[in-house]
């Protein structure tokens, strides 16, 4: 029985033991903040005091890159830091704080510039930011996608929240509706994280989809080879699909993976707050686990995981069934119209555009990703 998601609930659900904490010195993880979103070290310390007694952890962010204002802590910044340090426990953590200090700066681009300018960076980065694809220029999206390729070539893992609007919805000229993919979640060179809920919200049970979990098919980026088989299988075998006019079945499909995204506890401005939800909660949870797998790989002299998707799709599609909990129940939101009646895609066996492959079973995922 529990009254919401805390680090111990996550670690229990994803089968992380007290020994699943970072041990190597040259490992690190990071989350990126935009706008005036700041975290307070005191909130993190209090969070760990309240919720971190069952595992070795750090209670301090080691490095802040950028400007940390002195104002109140932001809920989102607190959430990211507290949960990446709960699954990626005892791993050195950085925060990139991109407030867009200059009035004409684009904070997201400022973060990309930092990546292009720092030779030594954490191996794992989590970001909870997105725009509708249709609001951005093609030139911008293609270039940002290329920046993710640069990061991938360097061995960085970049995880994006899939968004909290399900498949999204847009009215196109003529009055019809289509789904509305989100970028950078739809970039083929990032790993996108969707959301789930406990089937029974007060017990550590199996997971079902969180109906807000962002997912769908890009209208800009074609489907990459690494996911073609998995997505093709979904499109062929789903018992019910939205009409083809609502989505681009040959586009990059997301999310890739998911984790719990509902009813988190967060300490912000010294106050523990319940009911915090969204894929920005699930993203640092997965990020911390990837950082922990990197920790084990680095400890064995192996390179870090880098761009995760080719390995993820290979292992999940190749019968490593104990690496992932397949989430097969529930659908996500979309257009409230007579055709789809608010329903986007539905989860099903193997990959689906609501929860990707599903949620991590840490020991299985670790085993699979430690293999050469």
């Amino acid at each position, binding site marked *: 029985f529990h009254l919401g998601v805390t680090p111990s609930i996550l670690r229990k659900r994803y089968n992380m033991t007290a020994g699943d904490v970072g041990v190597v010195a040259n490992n690190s993880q990071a989350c990126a903040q935009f*706008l*005036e979103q700041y975290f307070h070290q005191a909130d993190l310390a209090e969070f760990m005091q309240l919720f971190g007694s069952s595992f070795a952890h750090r209670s301090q962010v080691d490095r802040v890159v950028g400007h940390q204002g002195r104002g109140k802590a932001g*809920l*989102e910044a607190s*959430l990211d830091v507290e949960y990446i340090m709960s699954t990626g426990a005892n791993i050195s953590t950085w925060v990139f704080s991109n407030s*867009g200090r*200059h*009035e*004409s*700066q*684009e904070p*997201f*681009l400022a973060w990309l*510039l930092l990546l*292009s*300018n*720092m*030779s030594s960076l954490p191996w794992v980065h989590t970001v*909870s*930011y997105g*725009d509708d694809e*249709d*609001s*951005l*220029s093609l*030139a*911008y999206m*293609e*270039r940002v996608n*290329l920046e993710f390729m*640069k990061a991938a*070539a*360097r*061995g960085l893992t970049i995880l994006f929240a899939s*968004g909290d609007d399900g498949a999204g919805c847009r009215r196109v000229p003529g009055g019809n509706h289509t789904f509305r993919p989100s970028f950078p979640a739809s970039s083929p060179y990032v790993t996108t994280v969707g959301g789930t809920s406990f089937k029974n*919200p007060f017990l550590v049970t199996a997971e079902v989809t969180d109906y*807000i979990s*962002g997912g769908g098919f890009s209208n800009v980026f074609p489907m990459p080879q690494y996911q073609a088989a998995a997505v093709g299988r979904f499109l062929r075998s789903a018992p019910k699909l939205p009409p083809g006019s609502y989505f681009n079945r040959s586009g990059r499909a997301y999310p890739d993976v998911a984790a719990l995204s*509902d*009813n*988190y506890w*967060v300490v912000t401005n010294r106050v523990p707050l319940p*009911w*915090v*939800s*969204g*894929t*920005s*909660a699930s*993203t640092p949870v997965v990020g911390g686990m990837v950082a922990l797998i990197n920790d084990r790989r680095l400890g064995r002299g*192996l*390179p*870090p995981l*880098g*761009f995760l*998707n080719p*390995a993820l799709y*290979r292992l999940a599609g190749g019968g490593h069934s104990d690496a992932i909990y397949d989430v097969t129940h529930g659908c996500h*939101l979309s257009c*409230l119209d007579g055709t789809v009646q608010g329903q986007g895609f539905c989860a099903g066996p193997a990959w689906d555009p609501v929860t990707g492959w599903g949620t991590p079973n840490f020991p299985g995922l670790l085993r699979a990703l430690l293999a050469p």
Partner: protein
Amino acid sequence: GHAPEPDQLFRPPSPPPPQRAPGWTHSGRVDPRHGVQLTFALRQRGAQRLAQIVDAVSDPRSPRYGQYLSLEQVRDLVQPSPTTLLTVLKWLQGHGVENCQSVTTRDFVECHMPASTAERLLPGAEFHRFVKGQQSTVRSPRPYTVPDELAQHLDFVSGLHRFPPERRGSSSTRDTKDVGSGQPPRGVA
């Protein structure tokens, strides 16, 4: 001139749900002397080669799996051609823009200049201030252009249209959002 981003929507992000703070409001054109910071995304080389490398170092079946590049190796692969660098820098200097810095990979140039200079540099652009609570941002509600000869050297210019990102994520008030979406409230119950 050439418009690098004719399809970029200029739209202050919609205000969040009613119980939250209001969205961005227009507060007029900035003083011509007001400083702006623009980032020029220079056209890179080696995109195809970069894609091949990413495939090779990220695919567990590849013999190059895990053989990542250093930042300097990435720079050697993607840095813009000398012609691109010269053309863009000459154009900036021609408008008196001198306060610039680049990044290790040499594919971005960040410059500070007065709004009046930026408006001459990027015909069509017009810098206005938008405010939201304590935050203030300067953006151009009109599309910008660059000289035709820069079309093949510049991907886009940052700092004109896109507003600071809205968080895609957490909310501790999903119960209120749910009322509007027709979904059953959660959490509070």
